[in-house]
């Protein structure tokens, strides 16, 4: 190998072959006029701007405002728009409420459907073959893997987002949070609690 190749930055990263192919694909599509560079960039900007903080705002609002909670349960997409969030291209988002008697957990066994506009990109484990197979068939064991043990009389409802609808869990409001403002409540709502594999944080 010549000395020059040792200074090639591409060969010194630990990227898979796919990385080069993706860049080639993008270049070809732009050259052919199939896609524009600006719209690709805008899409990347949108993707990186999505975080669980958006979903957390919906949950916190639902905790303090019963009427809002009912609207959220009826049509989560409209509720998101109501608080100034961008619900993204997914046509329907449905919020599922946890209660002392029922605990919801979301999975996509067929691929990785996920409410990305409200939670950002899904974690690797959500997309893993292990989670996709066992979330539906052994949910209590999966929750134990995540460190969550629910009482035996709590009904676990696993929701498989098999089609166009995306699901967001509204976890139960933690005890000892009566005096907290909405922002402080939102800070307790973790991404994993909105997927259903964890409870929200306890107040400080």
């Amino acid at each position, binding site marked *: 190998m010549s000395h020059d190749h040792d200074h090639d930055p591409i060969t010194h990263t630990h990227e898979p072959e796919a990385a080069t192919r993706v860049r080639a694909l993008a270049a070809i599509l732009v050259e052919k006029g199939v896609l524009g560079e600006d719209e690709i960039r805008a899409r990347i900007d949108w993707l990186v701007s999505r975080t669980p903080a958006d979903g957390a705002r919906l949950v916190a609002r639902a905790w303090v405002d019963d009427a809002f909670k009912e609207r959220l349960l009826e049509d989560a997409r409209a509720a998101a728009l109501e608080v100034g969030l961008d619900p993204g291209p997914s046509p329907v988002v449905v919020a599922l409420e946890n209660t002392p008697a029922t605990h919801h957990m979301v999975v996509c066994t067929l691929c990785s459907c996920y409410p990305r506009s409200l939670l950002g990109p899904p974690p690797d484990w959500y997309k893993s073959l292990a989670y996709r197979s066992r979330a539906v*068939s052994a949910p209590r064991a999966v929750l134990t893997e995540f460190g969550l043990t629910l009482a035996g009389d709590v009904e676990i409802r696993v929701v498989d987002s098999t089609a166009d609808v995306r699901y967001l869990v509204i976890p139960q409001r933690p005890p000892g949070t009566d005096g907290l403002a909405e922002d402080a409540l939102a800070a307790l709502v973790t991404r994993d609690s909105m997927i259903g594999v964890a409870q929200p944080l306890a107040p400080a």
Partner: protein
Amino acid sequence: MTFGIGDRVRVSGRRHAGHHRTPGYLKDRRGTVVRVHATFPNPETRAYGASGLPEQRLYLVDFAASEVWDTDGIDGRVLADIFEHWLEDSA
């Protein structure tokens, strides 16, 4: 046929060689409609470049885990979105 909340339904057990969004583990299982969604383009045809029209209605169907799995003592529910053309009346 169309379904409403509370209707008992059975997911068709038919094989489907191409793309479809009815998971194998729910085929032939009986559940209850708990939510009636909007209609959506049919992914089975849209996946091959067709329009996906006419749109098909989607339902959230609730199954007892014990109906779905053979595991002894399994509790809880499994819910999934199933298209109308995969559901049969099971009253």
